[in-house]
């Protein structure tokens, strides 16, 4: 029993990591909460639902298209709601436009898909495998492998690709980065785009393993991304992974052994406990004050 709970916990943790990366990276480069993050990923997930359930697309093609659409929508949010306000005196201003963008996307999604719970088709055959003497659902295993694979590819992109390295530099120091000739606007849109793509992939994996999708899951996605990012240390990829895993595993343990009613309260208790011990999150670095 515990084995299965842990297995599902790790899978959910990997999915949460995917959803958290985009949110955390945006905070890294812009030092801003991306309120629209959850609404973008649920838009992409709902779009995948339509392509799969109504139009009978091939899953890979449907996910690819929806992920790119989600990425472009996220980049659009950056261009419309943030770019012109980056120099604004108060961060509150762009927080408000972000909230506005979140509501616009949410309401447009509601017009198209409504707010009821829709049955999400399963992407993988429901088979049980025997792994080291334990029954493991194929769906869970494949979902985990895909999620970890996407995270690994993204990690390689950040470490090896010129744009990935530039993203890390921009998140450290915007003006010095622009002195290097790094195009700041394009970097910001790229971060939003990638965050949207990863978020949609995470959303689709989540919905397919639970067999359901609904508009309301968007807001919960934002909350999860926020919590996981803060627990792990906001702005860092390692932090997103640790935060996502802690949330995924603890949620499942609490739901099974305590009660699902206490899932969210206990999750937030964990958040508070970690912040009391390490206010910057587990992997968080202290921001050095600059004159």
């Amino acid at each position, binding site marked *: 029993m515990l084995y299965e709970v842990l297995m599902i916990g790790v899978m959910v943790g990997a999915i949460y990591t995917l959803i958290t990366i985009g949110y955390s990276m945006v905070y890294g480069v812009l030092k801003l909460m991306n309120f629209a993050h959850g609404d973008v990923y649920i838009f992409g997930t709902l779009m995948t639902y339509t392509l799969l359930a109504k139009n009978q697309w091939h899953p890979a093609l449907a996910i690819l298209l929806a992920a790119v659409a989600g990425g472009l929508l996220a980049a659009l949010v950056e261009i419309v709601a943030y770019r012109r306000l980056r120099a604004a005196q108060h961060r509150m201003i762009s927080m408000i436009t972000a909230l506005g963008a979140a509501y616009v996307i949410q309401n447009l999604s509601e017009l198209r898909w409504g707010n009821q719970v829709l049955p999400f088709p399963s992407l993988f055959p429901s088979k049980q495998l025997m792994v080291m003497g334990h029954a493991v659902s194929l769906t869970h295993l494949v979902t985990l492998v895909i999620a970890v694979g996407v995270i690994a590819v993204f990690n390689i992109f950040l470490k090896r690709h010129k744009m990935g390295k530039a993203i890390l530099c921009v998140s*450290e120091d915007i003006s*010095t980065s*622009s*002195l*290097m000739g790094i195009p700041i606007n394009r970097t910001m849109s790229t971060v939003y785009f990638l965050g949207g793509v990863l978020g949609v992939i995470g959303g689709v994996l989540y919905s397919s393993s639970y067999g359901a999708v609904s508009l309301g899951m968007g807001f919960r996605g934002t909350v999860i991304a926020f919590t996981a990012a803060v627990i792990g240390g906001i702005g860092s990829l390692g932090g997103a992974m640790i935060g996502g895993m802690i949330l995924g595993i603890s949620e499942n343990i609490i739901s099974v052994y305590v009660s699902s009613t206490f899932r969210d309260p206990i999750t937030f208790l964990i958040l508070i406990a970690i912040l009391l011990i390490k206010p910057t999150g587990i992997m968080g*670095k202290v921001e050095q004050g*600059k004159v």
Partner: protein
Amino acid sequence: MLKVESLVAGYGNIKVLHQISIEVGKGELVAVLGANGAGKTTLLKTISGLIKASAGTVRFDNADITRYPAEKIVGAGISHVPEGRNVFARSTVLVNLEMGAFLRQDKAGVKNDIEKYLAMFPILGERHAQLAGTLSGGEQQMLAIARGLMSRPKLLLLDEPSMGLAPFLVNEIMKIIKELHREGISILLIEQNVHKALKVTQRAYVMELGQIRRHGKSMELLESDVIQKSYLGEKQNPKRRA
């Protein structure tokens, strides 16, 4: 090469630069001197596009670059090594150098240049895989200069490269600046270390409260009364007191 005319700039409503005009010729090594708060850093930031000018022009190689964004100014051939070094502390020495060449497409050339600067600054060669944040102040300054050179600039803007360094390191940095100048790069050097700066440069401007108060040949300024009194202290010249 660089021609700044009647430049006005500042932060929000606060004007820091009041009608600044300076020039750097091809192959010249020029200093801008002045006390803290004179506006020297603001001047460099306006030239490199980090701050938008509210009036006046910056011309470089006969092109008006006043309204260019910072990343386009690097492309035009001006490289700004910022005050306080500002290396990317969480990236390796190697990545810092690569980022300096962000706009360059010639991969082989970039690789060659990285090797060239790692050889020119052996301590960076030894530590190329280390995070830049783990380097000492002097090493970070060398990295910042090497990173600034990676874009193959025609003009290098150096903002107080000797700040916070031990005296023997200051001499080391000044030697590097002279060496780069000998290689043909034009340099605009901002310094608080007036004596050292006047010794290595050919011409100098003296800034006060956002205006150019004096300019002339560095050797002449070094001898002059005003500089002696304001920046070098009278003690250094007991003859004049007598």
